[in-house]
């Protein structure tokens, strides 16, 4: 196999100088992508939580206002 690859004059097979950074890149790349994704999931969940709380608070305020309105009419 190695002999076959050596037939490609532009290629330099099993060159540790190239393979080593490529191996480092595997863990660095996977770690970075999962950190970004984790951060996005956290931010999305937090935002969704805040939006839900705000919506609920708004509903409660509206309900309270609706409840107050008939009393003031009377």
């Amino acid at each position: 196999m190695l002999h076959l690859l050596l037939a490609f004059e532009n290629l330099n097979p099993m060159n540790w100088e190239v393979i080593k950074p490529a191996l480092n890149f595997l863990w660095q790349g996977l770690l970075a992508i999962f950190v970004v994704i984790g951060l996005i999931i956290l931010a999305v969940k937090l935002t969704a939580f805040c939006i839900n709380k705000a919506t609920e608070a708004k509903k409660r305020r509206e309900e309270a206002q609706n409840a107050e309105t008939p009393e003031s009419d009377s």
Partner: protein
Amino acid sequence: MDFLLKGFQAIGDNPKMIAMWIIGGLLIYLAIKKDMEPALLLPMGFGAILVNLPLSPVVDEHGIIASLFQVGIAASEAMPLLLFIGIGCMIDFGPLLTNPKLFILGGAAQLGIFITIILAAMIGFPLNDAASIGIIGAADGPTAILVAQKVMSNYLGPIMVVAYSYMALVPIVQPAVVKLCTTKKERLIKMKYSAKQIPKLMRILFPIIVTICSGLIAPDSLSLVGMLMFGNLIRECGVLKSLSETAQTTFSNIITLLLGITIAFQMQADQFLQLETLIIMVLGLFAFVFDTVGGVMCAKLMNLFSKEKINPMLGAAGISAFPMAARVVEKMSIKEDPSNHLLMHAVGANVSGQIASAIVGGLIIGILFPGL
């Protein structure tokens, strides 16, 4: 009468050009007859013929194709980036926002990229070319163009052709790999989909959140992720409907058309017809296969820790071939059990793959070539 024979004489000097006409013809055939990415393969095929005609002025220093390449790709990667605005406008992130943990599948389905980089390095490609070959596994043409161009790969032409050809082959490649990695019982796992109404504010904030998170950890991905998310913001803001429609249709079509014919600049016979092109084709397939394996295995791993089981086939939808990968999963699930519809979950995983592949593209540029 010599002036009439100049072209024929030039062909005699470089008969490789004829091989490129055949390749161009094949791309046109695949686009028209097999409906494989016609918007891109057709202009690429015609471009391959155009740039390989002897004495063709289009590839001269001020020729139209050379100029388009310089301005649209070499100078700032404008064309692939602008295409991302259109893609962002097309994507509905609703299914992903309904179930954000699907995001993990999009990340895992990028595994093939990293493994292919290592394999290409072992075979003997320089690091910049290995990275560009690995990114074929992103299953995302614009990302592959951007990375290959940014890291100054010598194989931009072959990488483009392989990336777009394999994207069209997703329905053939993925089912076989998924079946190899899963049991019948796993493929029959049913998942409920609760079509929650996602608040408009959430939809508007999502592209901004993704842009900030990616920018903080992977700043080099900002051009790709930023354009994708900008497109999505145009879609979700609700006040730019006509712009959004234009970006999804006319704008994307024009950019794709120009991109296809511009890429042909890299398909000149001497650059394209190398034995390395064959290795790139094999490695590209390898990247697609291992992306799918990564996604499926991650879904299985998640099932070990989760009460609500995920159908592992969803992992295959984590690659960014949008919406093809999601459709493949839906077809497979219906085939196994006609009542098991996974489409919406698969779309969620698929759009997460779109974001993840753009982030990975930036990471590759940033980690391997920090100075670029």
